[in-house]
């Protein structure tokens, strides 16, 4: 079974620029998660999709972050405009049913904002 694919692997941008991350979950996984992990901290959930609907985006800074999940498969997370404090690893994960079991994480995208 192929894992969760993420791209790009690394990204360096200047503050106020925009950036987008892409995630392809495991085939058949209905639930997709985006986590933000700041250096030295544990991952924090930004947004959770069930199929192509959002079920939790309570910690997503909606003034600058947006995400979509097209046709309930791939997902894109965008930041516009980026701030220095957005420097982090952005992790995508998927699970079959969103019941708290069977999580698989991607390798993440490391974003540096300068």
């Amino acid at each position, binding site marked *: 079974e192929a894992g*969760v694919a993420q791209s790009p692997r690394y990204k360096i941008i200047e503050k106020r620029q925009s950036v987008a991350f892409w995630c392809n979950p495991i085939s058949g996984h209905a*639930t997709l*998660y985006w986590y933000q992990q700041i250096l*030295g*901290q*544990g*991952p*924090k*959930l930004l947004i*959770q999709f*069930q199929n192509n609907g959002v*079920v*939790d985006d309570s910690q997503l800074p909606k003034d600058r972050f947006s995400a979509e999940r097209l046709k309930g498969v791939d997902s894109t997370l965008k930041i516009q405009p980026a701030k220095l404090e957005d420097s982090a*690893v952005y*992790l995508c*994960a998927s*699970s079959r*049913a*969103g*019941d*708290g*079991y069977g*999580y*698989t*994480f*991607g*390798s*993440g995208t*490391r974003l540096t904002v300068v």
Partner: protein
Amino acid sequence: SQQGEEDPQALSIQEGENATMNCSYKTSINNLQWYRQNSGRGLVHLILIRSNEREKHSGRLRVTLDTSKKSSSLLITASRAADTASYFCATIMTTDSWGKLQFGAGTQVVVTP
């Protein structure tokens, strides 16, 4: 605020020794999971323990759960240099309908040959 807190924050041991790290959480859970993260990589699922379980084993890993104290421990026996990584506990709260994992800040483990 984070649901889980790991202790210690950092741990340095020699190969062959055992490594123990603890996790405390705040609210009732459905399950608790432990993950490993090598530097700059994604999270790898190690073991899951349900709220009605007290102990689980997987290879050199042993996890305990004490729901009365809202705490868990991860023991890695006979550690190897390849066990060098950060270890995170994560919980699924009983009040969560969608299986959201809530992570602690992690324990950084260094195993020296």
